[in-house]
């Protein structure tokens, strides 16, 4: 059984059809990239998978380990193992980073029938992870993402992924707004999280990130459908020729 199975998924935003029958299958241990021009539906796909309000599914199904994902609340999906790395992580003034992480980790542990961490256990656990993923103590203490640089926000997303240990990580434009050093750090974090027990869906506009996180498959999303799939070399081809070939076909 595939880890993620998307069958003929259709979705609208404000009554406008954005996803027009997406088919995608992802096995455990795999990393797939979804590329496409602006407005092709990449972010919509990530939000539909994670359950954001305002995205109405009008057809098709999404199965995570055989379970119907679309029936679940966002928090239930997260507990089942869906992780969305946000393109623009939101700042939450007043909520300390550690409080947020502890609440999230314990919610997921409770759901999975594991014992909750007490304060001491959690500090030990999160400090080790933070060190591994280049997140400073100061960043942990501050309010969630508040006043963080672009690079800090993305590193913080990767840390959240590391502590929540998802089955499926959806990384939405993780490379956007990063300089090359920040990109390398984030890519190293993503690579460290690759493993046989999870799958990743990397959504990106540019090929650049894929130099550092090499995918098993590349899909091209165009006007709400996957129009082409291929091995990692497809990304290089797109980089050279752009997305105009699809526009011509569509026209």
């Amino acid at each position, binding site marked *: 059984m595939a880890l993620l199975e998307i069958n003929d998924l259709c979705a609208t935003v404000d009554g406008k059809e954005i996803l027009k029958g997406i088919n995608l299958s992802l096995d455990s241990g795999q990393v797939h990239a979804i590329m496409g021009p602006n407005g092709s539906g990449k972010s919509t796909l990530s939000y539909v998978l994670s359950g954001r309000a305002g995205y109405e599914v009008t057809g098709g199904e999404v199965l995570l380990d055989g379970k119907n994902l679309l029936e679940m*609340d966002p928090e239930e999906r*997260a507990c089942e193992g869906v*992780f969305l790395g946000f393109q623009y992580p939101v700042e939450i003034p007043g909520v300390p980073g550690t409080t*947020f992480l502890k609440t*999230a980790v314990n919610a*997921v542990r409770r759901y999975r029938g594991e014992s909750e961490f007490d304060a001491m256990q959690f500090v030990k656990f999160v400090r080790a992870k933070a060190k591994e993923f280049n997140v400073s103590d100061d960043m942990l203490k501050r309010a969630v993402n508040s006043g963080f640089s672009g690079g800090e926000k993305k590193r913080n997303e990767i840390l959240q992924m590391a502590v929540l240990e998802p089955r499926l990580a959806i990384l939405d434009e993780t490379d956007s707004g990063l300089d090359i050093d920040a990109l390398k750090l984030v890519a190293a974090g993503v690579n460290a999280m690759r493993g046989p027990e999870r799958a990743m869906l990397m959504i990106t506009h540019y090929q650049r990130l894929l130099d550092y996180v090499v995918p098993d498959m590349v899909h091209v999303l165009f006007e709400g459908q996957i129009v082409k799939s291929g091995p990692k070399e497809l990304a290089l081809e797109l980089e050279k020729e752009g997305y105009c070939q699809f526009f011509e076909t569509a026209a």
Partner: protein
Amino acid sequence: MPDGMKIDLPLAENYENVAPVLVGAGVDWLDALRRDGLARYGALGLPNPRVEAWKYTNLTRMGRTKFISAVTAAQPSLDQIPAGALDIDAVKLVLVNGRLRPEFSDLDQLPDGVTAMNLAEAVAGKSPDLQGVLRAVVSGHDMPMLALNAAYLNDGVVIDVEKGRAIDTPIHLISIGVSDEEPVAFHPRNVLRVGDGAAVTVYESHIGLGGPYLSNGAMDIRIGEDALLRHRKLQNEAENGYHVATASVVLEARARYENYTLHVGGLLVRNEIHAVLSGSGADCNLYGAYAGRGNQHIDTTTFVDHAAAECTSREVYKGALDDNARGVFQGKILVRRGAQKTDGHQLNKALLLSEGAEIDSKPELEIYADDVKCSHGATAGELDEEQLFYLRARGINEAEARDLLVAAFLEDSLDVIGDEDRREAFRSIISNWLAGRSQRQED
């Protein structure tokens, strides 16, 4: 009995029976003060929307409750201080239905440089210069409840801090409203004078048992030159409690006033602060938060009077309102002619957590000087959907995510309290309020 001691208005029906037993009855200046208060209350009436200053807070319904005066009622017996007050290390002064109760108070542990006594002792001549303070009922404003307080002048506590003293131990005034059988009304008048160059921290906790009861308190605060008063108040009255409080604050030159008020209790609440910055370089800081649910009505009314040059005032209130709760914020900054280089800012931010919740904000600036920096603002909104989704996408359920965001919003107001332990005392009250909120959602 002197003339004019009988008026037919709620809360004053039996005044002629109470007047003769009020402390110092027969002393000319006290009689005159009370008579003026009663006459003024008689002229203004129980606050209702026709009185501009009470446009959003109507006491007409409260007025239908037949309150008896705590002065003639039996003092309730109480074994211990009920739960709900701030948990802080401090010298306690405990008032039950407005009257100082020595058996619960730490009168023998007052720090050097601080005196405290009940109002009865004070008016009997033990506290100097009291007449002037008590007579200075803020004039020119429609303050019927303050006038009523003056009419019933009897209970309360008078605190003096010697000049030049920096007092480390905080003082904690705990007001307990108790009514078992009959609704009780009490009108304590507290006086707090901080001498020149002195510094002190005073807490207030307002809690209660039973109800309905009315706590219509007034506090006269004088802060001397170069003195500092940190004044922090928790209003956590019983569910059926009515809480009306008027603080009149006078700041001398270079005095600093730091007020923080947290409201979580009471059925109908009006908290009014009138600050007069009478000496140049004075610095007035009014901060606070209010959290309402059910049918609570919480009114914060402030008036900051810049009467001298080069003074600063800051005002930030944050409110979270759930169910059918209603919040009111009226804030006025007056900059008088000659109060040049005034720097005054004011902000009210309200979070509406349900369709039925409501906030009325009325910020006002009145400026007669030409070289000033003043601003005011008010916002009202719901929880941020993006923040909620972010938290939920990490596995945190919706109720818990909302609580985290509401707590963050309210606790943000606590930043002005420097000391972590004391911040924690207020934070735990906010947590309890949130816990009560989630509890009810499960029921």
